[in-house]
């Protein structure tokens, strides 16, 4: 219990420091673009892979469930609504908690245990401005971008599956898709993705900074970053659903 409170306190302290160093643009600015590429662009394939199969499975399961009771075009409605509101943002974030969160925690953890973060400080760099701020900003910017790709691919995968395997025509699928579509759903998905980006990168940075004790410590930090990041994603998901829907 005490350890949990202490962790929250340390996390809050890091967050406050990060906000305080936002004005040091000369330190984090040059680091941002490469991180947009490594955190964002490089993550697109895994997100698309996951949403391709999610869209396919959703279409097949919807068709299976609706057969004989609900018109076929409701497959488009279910695929669209489910991918946009829930599975697109959440599955993408969970996948990136593994890829991005683990990568950040292990990189910063290694820097911590090999005194590279101390060396940064000794060279008069604020390590929070240099290491944390650009990563978190890159996550907050790129997670929504990746999520947009995921939503499009998820729905497209459901549509192609409907055409190829479920005897549903394009007009039927599009009719269902339009039936319950609301642009607010996309805004909702992007707000969630933005917050997930903040959490995954922030938690990765936090546990990386806390690492100690060599390779084993880095391993622990990486595991905690993925587990805690994933848990917070699910809690935040429920929070946004309760607040925004």
């Amino acid at each position, binding site marked *: 219990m005490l350890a949990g409170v202490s962790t929250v306190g340390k996390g809050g302290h890091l967050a406050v420091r990060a906000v305080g160093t936002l004005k040091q643009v000369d330190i984090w600015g040059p680091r941002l673009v490469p991180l947009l590429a490594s955190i964002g662009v490089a993550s697109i394939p895994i997100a698309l892979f996951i949403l391709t199969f999610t869209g396919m499975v959703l279409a097949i399961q919807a068709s299976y469930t609706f057969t004989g009771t609900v018109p076929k075009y409701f497959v488009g409605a279910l695929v669209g609504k489910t991918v946009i509101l829930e599975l697109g943002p959440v599955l993408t974030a969970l996948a990136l908690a593994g890829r991005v969160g683990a990568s950040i925690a292990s990189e910063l953890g290694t820097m911590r245990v090999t005194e*590279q973060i101390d060396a940064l400080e000794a060279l008069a760099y604020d390590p929070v401005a240099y290491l944390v701020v650009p990563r978190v900003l890159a996550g907050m910017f790129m997670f929504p971008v990746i999520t947009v790709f995921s939503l499009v691919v998820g729905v497209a995968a459901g549509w192609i599956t409907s055409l190829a395997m479920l005897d549903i025509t394009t007009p039927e699928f599009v009719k269902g898709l339009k039936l319950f579509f609301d642009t607010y759903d996309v805004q909702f998905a992007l707000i969630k993705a933005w917050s997930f980006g903040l959490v995954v990168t922030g938690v990765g940075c936090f546990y990386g900074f806390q690492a100690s004790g060599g390779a084993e410590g880095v391993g622990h930090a990486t595991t905690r970053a993925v587990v805690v990041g994933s848990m917070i994603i699910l809690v935040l998901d429920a929070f946004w659903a309760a607040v925004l829907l």
Partner: protein
Amino acid sequence: MSIEIRGIHKSFGEDHILRGFSLAVQEGETLSIIGPSGVGKSVTLKTIIGLITPDSGEVWVDGKSVHALLLPELFEFRRKVGYVFQFAALFDSMSVGENVAMGLRRIEGITEGEIQKRVSYCLNIVDLGGTEERLPSELSGGMRKRAGLARAIATRPKYLLYDEPTTGLDPVTTTTIDGLINRMSEELGVTAIVVTHNMASAYEISDRIAMLHEGSIRFVGTPDDIRATDDPVVKGFVEGRPELSREVSL
């Protein structure tokens, strides 16, 4: 007084490492800190530069208490300090040249051309000329250590803190590094604190030598003083004769 350590205590969990440790270093002086492993020598250096906060006590540099400085003031202070880490602590994702340039990039008004010239100059000083494009992983341990030294001196700091600068180096490179430490002191008037186990180096580079023992200073004096001391603990360490200090314990 240039650097003054006043009664610092530092514990890590149950280990009370520094126990009321006080020491003063004069401007332009090179002072070596010797002592057994784990006695708190590196902790002392990190405390001086503000990387570790003492449980109690103060470190004063140029009339300012380091641990009372606000963050921007602390970073401003660190620009005047070069730190050579025990295991070099090079940034492994950057080339050697970029590592050496890191401190220089914090200096306002310096051009890229000047940075590159300074990088080449510093790498040449430590016999690493031409390694600018190589990654730290492509260097031997000794070369990495010298690259760390080049990074520390690149900004022409007023203070240099060396954490075991010659440990693990061959005798020729050790002599080169000792010469460089002396040169920094003589030509630039750098105030230096050197943590070392190497007594030959300590005698060669030091104006004074301090021995840290059980968390506080056991001895401070010139190299001649330490050679002549009758203190069995100091003598035992300096001469590599542990039986002397064991007799004291018994």
